[in-house]
């Protein structure tokens, strides 16, 4: 036995360490007793419930209740354990010792992923006999059970990977450093968003495709005609499963790579440039896929593009914070570049561009520009294609979208993204006590207050030409007629945006030069 555990420890010491720390007889006993009590209570409450005509069998009710509860319990409790464990290790400093060991980060994190949520797993596993038996008695096919467990398992891996990242990032602010704060926040997020979304999607779509006989999960009628990239994921068992599993795989991979990077370099930006670009491509392909081959009308498709536009706007805003390096990282970047110049490895203009696009410690403006281009590459052609020959709700023709209007809208949104990115980078490169709070506060104020104030004053984009210009200046051209025709004065709004961006870029450049000069001075003086 000792030899076996030693070999397991050699294979993955982190997993063994978690087993030893958690699988104590008292804990195991508590989990099993708790699960037994819960199952008994569930059975008693269903068996004694009011009987009415057409009421499903007890087994059916138990199976349906357990099928809904299992993802909630597993995701929320498992996520809580993982976040709390990593946040605790980060706070006490033990995580550093693991980080300095020669074991690769993926081994450590796999050990954490499988080992830390062991008790919630045990809790769930001990309910499986009841789940399987009630399911079979209720007429659920073995295929449905197989699909259920496969998707719940893959879903758990995705949620747990997110929990790993949350735990590793819990040192980002003083609030999240407090014991339990990150873990409770993650469990709350899981309970109120991830688990309901998971249960809703799979019970409405994925498991419907493998349900035979009595319908176990209630379904909406229109889900059977749901298409993604012309594949009928609402009816085909193969496509619906491939869609769900594929999405879990992509999300898990992106989050996993981010978690591994965060583990190795705790002070790194939340996302690497590469993962940032991949996430943007993924978001656009995923959402855009629903517009193709789904039999939507032109108007609906165009509304879909507008939805994608807003999603991209939020994604870009999130990326600005996830990709922007701190003052210390910018200092390292300018020092490194200065040293490269001194040692003759002077970086060319091409090298600078490469650095701005790929280096995680370079100013994020270049990366945000590229992400905006990725979004535009999907939205602009889609808006152009779906913006022709549309009818409104009264079947009246809507004017076609013009190429110049699309260019106008794209420029306005692109420039405003760059302005926000530059602003955040200016704040991060300045010496401030809480740069993140300043950046979030400033961006939120600029993004929310002016449009709200204009709306409150009833100055709507299409109320006058000047109003349209003002809205364009705020980076919101699609609120007006900009998607159809550009008022000649609208370009003044763009010009205003460009001037503001130019001023901010100048300020950022000045801050970077100050950092470089400061770096040189410190090294010469000391």
């Amino acid at each position: 036995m000792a030899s076996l555990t030693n070999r397991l420890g050699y294979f993955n010491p982190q997993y063994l360490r978690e087993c030893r720390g958690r699988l104590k007889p008292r804990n195991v006993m508590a989990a099993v007793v708790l699960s037994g009590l819960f199952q008994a209570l569930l059975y008693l409450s269903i068996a004694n419930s009011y009987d009415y005509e057409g009421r499903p069998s007890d087994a059916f009710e138990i199976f349906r209740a357990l099928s809904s509860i299992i993802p909630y319990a597993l995701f929320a409790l498992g996520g809580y354990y993982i976040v709390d464990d990593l946040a605790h290790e980060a706070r006490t400093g033990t995580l550093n010792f693991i980080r300095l060991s020669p074991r690769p980060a993926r081994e450590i994190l796999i050990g954490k992923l499988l080992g830390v949520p062991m008790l919630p797993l045990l809790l769930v596993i001990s309910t499986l006999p009841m789940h399987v038996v009630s399911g079979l008695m209720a007429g659920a096919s073995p295929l449905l059970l197989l699909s259920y467990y496969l998707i719940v398992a893959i879903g758990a891996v995705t949620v747990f990977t997110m929990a790993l990242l949350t735990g590793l990032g819990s040192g980002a602010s003083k609030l999240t450093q407090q014991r339990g704060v990150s873990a409770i926040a993650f469990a709350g997020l899981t309970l109120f968003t991830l688990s309901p979304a998971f249960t809703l999607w799979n019970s409405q779509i994925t498991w419907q495709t493998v349900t035979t006989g009595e319908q176990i999960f209630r379904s909406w009628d229109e889900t059977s005609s749901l298409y993604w990239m012309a594949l009928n994921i609402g009816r085909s068992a193969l496509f619906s499963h491939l869609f769900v599993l594929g999405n879990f795989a992509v999300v898990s991979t992106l989050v996993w790579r981010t978690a591994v990077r965060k583990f190795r370099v705790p002070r790194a930006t939340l996302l690497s440039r590469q993962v940032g670009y991949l996430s943007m491509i993924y978001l656009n392909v995923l959402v855009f896929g629903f517009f193709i081959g789904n039999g939507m009308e032109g108007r609906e498709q165009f509304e879909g593009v507008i939805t994608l536009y807003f999603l991209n706007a939020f994604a870009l805003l999130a990326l600005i914070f996830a990709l922007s390096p701190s003052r210390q990282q910018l200092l390292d970047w300018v020092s490194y570049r200065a040293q490269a110049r001194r040692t003759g490895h002077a970086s060319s203009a091409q090298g600078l561009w490469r650095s701005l696009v790929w280096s995680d410690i370079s100013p994020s403006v270049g990366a945000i520009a590229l992400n905006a281009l990725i979004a535009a590459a999907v939205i602009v052609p889609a808006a152009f294609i779906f913006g022709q020959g549309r009818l409104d709700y009264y079947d009246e023709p809507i004017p076609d979208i013009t190429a110049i209007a699309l260019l106008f809208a794209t420029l306005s949104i692109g420039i405003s993204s760059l302005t926000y990115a530059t602003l955040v980078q200016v704040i991060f490169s300045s010496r401030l006590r809480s740069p993140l709070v300043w950046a979030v506060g400033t961006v939120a104020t600029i993004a929310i207050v002016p449009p709200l104030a204009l709306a409150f004053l009833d100055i709507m984009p299409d109320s006058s030409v000047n109003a349209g210009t003002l809205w364009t200046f705020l980076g919101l051209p699609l609120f007006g007629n900009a998607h159809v025709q550009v008022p000649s004065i609208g370009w003044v709004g763009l010009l205003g945006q460009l001037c503001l961006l130019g001023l901010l870029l100048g300020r950022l450049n000045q801050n970077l030069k100050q950092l470089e000069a400061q770096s040189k001075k410190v090294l010469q003086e000391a």
Partner: protein
Amino acid sequence: MPGQSAQTAVLPVKSMTEPLVIKTEQLTKQFDDYAAVNSVNLEVGAGEVYGLIGPNGAGKTTLIRLLALAEQSTTGEITIDGKKLMPGQLNAEVKKRLGFLPDDFPLYNDLSVQNYLEYFAQLYYINPEDLAQRIEEVLALVNLENKRVSLVSELSRGMKQRLSLARTVIHRPKLLLLDEPVSGLDPIARIDYCKTIKRLQQEGMTILISSHILSDLEEFCTSIGIMEQGRLVESGRIQSLYQKDVQRLSIAVLNDGRLNKPIDADSAVEIYLQEHPLVASYEQLEDTGRFAVTFTGDESDAADLLSVLVQEGVRVREFHCVQETLEDIFLKLGHQQTA
């Protein structure tokens, strides 16, 4: 630097022709408007015990953290045991050669001592077949054999500190980096701890240690580095640091009128000291026949001075070199260089 001074020094430690275990080139770590480590060129040979001293905030901890890969440098290069550190890489081979004990020593309170050590041994790829024996060895090294099954949370502070050391050396690192390892220990525990470090030295480990307790370092260090404001202002074999400075002689003579000269013994000694080319300065202490002499010669020159005094009939009752302490050297050299 150790490599430069060792050619003249005869020391009971390994020769400096041995391969370097630590080599840094222009190593710099800048935090905002100050350089915690500034252009440090450090060389430590195999088997050395290198003491890093300096005031608080001098950059000792940052330097050790950079060497331990716990911190990434702004510029400069680090080579450990012939392997250059690659920024952003796992550096697994280097990590296997390193043992790092920071000044705080967080532990896993939910594990037993045995399980705690097993965990770290496995993290460092110790073979399952060798595991039990190695744990026996390190427990014996730190005198915790009888605490094997105790929970870590049940240990005293001193025991926890020793357990941390056991954890740090369990994979037999070639280089041991110890940051203030004896801080917070009572004197007896500190002496025990220092004995353990000496045993590790005898086992052939190269050790870099920072401490504010200079008398401890003096006892077992072969080389010393003094850090001030991020710079390594002095670095060398401990003996060569002493030799760099002038000697202080203490001379006491008897003024009993038996000097066969028209002057008393004090005056005679003063005349010799004034004329001696290797006497930088001297001071007569409270007219007691005792002199404190700053002497720039070596031990042989000092012996010559003594024989001249005796030959001239001065009855010398005391003549010895006042040994400088590491603290004296630190206070003098560190601040001189910074100024």
